[in-house]
C-alpha cells in the first residue's frame, strides 16, 4: 500500500487538520505517516476517538507520497484542501506559512 495520513475537520471552527504525534495540526507536514495497513487502521481509530470526543468531524485516511519529508496527497482535492484555494493564495494554510 502507499503511505497514508489521517485528516479531519475541527468541529468548532471547521479547520482542516492532520493527525500527528503531537495531536492535530493544520499543517500536513506534522502528520504521522502510516506505512502499513495496521498503522493506518490504528491512526484512524485514534481519529475516530477524537470525533467521539468532539474534537473533530469525519476523520478519514488519505493517500500520500513523501516529498522531502512532507506528505504530498495523491489526490488533487486533498492537495487543495491542505494548502488552500489555488485562486486565493492569501487564504488557507498556504497563507499562514508566512506568519
Amino acid at each position: 500500500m502507499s503511505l497514508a495520513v489521517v485528516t479531519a475537520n475541527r468541529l468548532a471552527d471547521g479547520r482542516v487538520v492532520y493527525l500527528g504525534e503531537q495531536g492535530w495540526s493544520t499543517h500536513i507536514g506534522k502528520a504521522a505517516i502510516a506505512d502499513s495497513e495496521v498503522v493506518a487502521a490504528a491512526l484512524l481509530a485514534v481519529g475516530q476517538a477524537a470525533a467521539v470526543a468532539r474534537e473533530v468531524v469525519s476523520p478519514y485516511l488519505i493517500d500520500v507520497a513523501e516529498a522531502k519529508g512532507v506528505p504530498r496527497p495523491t489526490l488533487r482535492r486533498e492537495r487543495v484542501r491542505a494548502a488552500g484555494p489555488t485562486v486565493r493564495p492569501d487564504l488557507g494554510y498556504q497563507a499562514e506559512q508566512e506568519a
Partner: protein
Amino acid sequence: MYRYDDFDQRIIDERVSQFRDQVRRRLNGELSEEEFKPLRLMNGVYLQLHSYMLRIAIPYGVLSSRQLRTLAHIARRYDKGYGHFTTRQNIQFHWPKLAEVPDILAELAGVQMHAIQTSGNSFRNVTADHYAGVVANEIEDPRIYAEVIRQWSTLHPEFSFLPRKFKIAISGATRDRAAVKTHDIGLFIRKGDGDRIGFEVVVGGGQGRTPFIAKTIRKFLPEQDLLSYLEAIMRVYNEFGRRDNLFKARIKILVHELGIEKFTAMVEEEWADSRDYTATLPPDEIARIRTHFAPPAYESVATPVVGLEAKRFEDRDFARWVRHNIAAHRQPGYAIVNLSLKRIGETPGDATAEQMDAIALLADRYSLGEVRVTHEQNLVLPHVKQADLSALWQALARLDLATPNIGLATDIVACPGLDYCSLANARSIPIAQRIAQRLADLDRQELTRELRINISGCINACGHHHVGHIGILGVDKQGEEFYQLTLGGHAEEDASLGSIVGPAFSSDDIVGAVEGVIDTYLAERRGDERFIDTCRRVGLQPFKERLYGAH
C-alpha cells in the same frame, strides 16, 4: 420589497434560538454528527473542503441596502472579508466557524434575513426574475408569489424530510430570466379568462447528473389554488420519490420514470382528494403581500433624458457600459443597472466586504435602497434614474464593478469548483479566469454578441453548464483535470440542454477550444444570429470539425 411583520420576525428569531441550542448540544455531545448534520443543513451550514460554509438565503434575489451592509459586516467580522453570490440568488460565506454561526444568524435576523433551508432535503430558496417589478411587459410581479411560497415552504412540517432537495422558480414576464424550466417545480404567471391571474405549472426540470427540461403539468392553475396544488405535487413526490438511491431521488427522475401523463393524473387525484384540508391561499393574503411590492415613488421624469445621449456620444466607455449593462425600465426616465461581478481574471460572483458596503451606499443614493442578485452571479440596481447613469458609472468603475460584459462572453458563470468544494472533480474558477482573459477584448466580445458560458467543477452542475450556450464540465481523468465541452444549452422559455461535442480537453487546451468554438460560430453565422441561434441551425458538426478535425 417585502417587510416582515411580527410573525415573520418571530419565526426567524425562534429559529435562531433553536439552532443555537442544537449547536450547543452538538458541541457538548448530546447530538452526534449523524443526528446534527440534517439540522445544520436545514440552517444552511455545510462542511466543505476547507472549512464550514454558510449559505444565506436572499429570497428571490432582493436585498435592501441595510441587509447588504450586514452581509459586508458578516464577511468582515466572521469570515475572510468576502462573499460569493450563487446561481440560486443566495450568498455563501466559505469560512465561518460553527460555534459562531448562531451569532451570525442572530445578526441576520436583525435585518430580516436567515439561512433557513438553504440546504437539506426540503424546499430551497425560491428564485425569480431579477428584473421583477421593474421590467416592462410583465404580466404580474412574480415576487408576490415567490414570497407566498417562501412562507408556505418555511418549516413545513410535512415536507421537511423529502427524498432530496427541492427547488422552485417563478417568472412573471414573457421572457424567462429565472431558468424556470430547469427547476423541480417551475411557475410561469399567465392570464386566464377575464384577465384572472394563474400559473402554468411545470415539473421535473433539473440539472446535475441527469438533466431534464421541466414538463407542463397544468397549463393554467388559478391563483387561489397555488398552494394546495403545490402540496399535491409534494405529497406525490414525498411518497414515491426514491429514497434508496441518492442519484435518483429528485422529482425529475420520478416524472421521467412515470411519464408526465401518469404523474399528472396522480397529482390531480391527490389534489382533488386533499383540497379541503391542505393549504389555502386567501385573496386577502395575496393582496397584503402585493402591497409590499407596489412600485416605489418614482419621480416624474421628462424623456428623453437631457444629456444622456451627449454623454454616450462623448465617452465611448460609458456608451459601451450603457449598451451592455443597462436594461430598459418600465418607468420613463429610469433604468435597470447591472453590476458585473465578472471582472476579467477575478472569481465570478465574489464581492469583497468593501465592495458590498460601497454598493449599499450606491443603492441608497441611486436605487431607492434596493439591490438584486441574479442567478448568473451578478448584481442589479433596479431603480436608477437615467440622469444618474453617468455619475453611477464613474462610481462603479472606481470599484471595479463596471465591466461592460453583461450577457457577453466574459460574463461567465462558474461554480466554486475544486478550489472550494469537496464534491468537485476539477477546478472551475481558474478556467473561468483564463477564458475571460483570452476573450477580454471588448470589441471582439461585442462582435460575438450574446454568449453564455457556464462552468461546473463536477457532475452536480452547480455552474448550470447544461444550459450554457457553451457548457464546460470539469472531470478527473487519472488524476488530471479535463474539461468536457457541451454546446447549445439555453435557459430561457425555449430551454434546451447542451450536447457533448466530443472528448474532453486538457486544462491546457480548453481555452483554445472555447476560442475555436467562437471562431466557428463567427464563420457560420448568418445575419444577426446569436450564438445559440447559429448553434441550433448548424448543429454540432462544424464545431466538431474545428475542434477535432474532419473525419
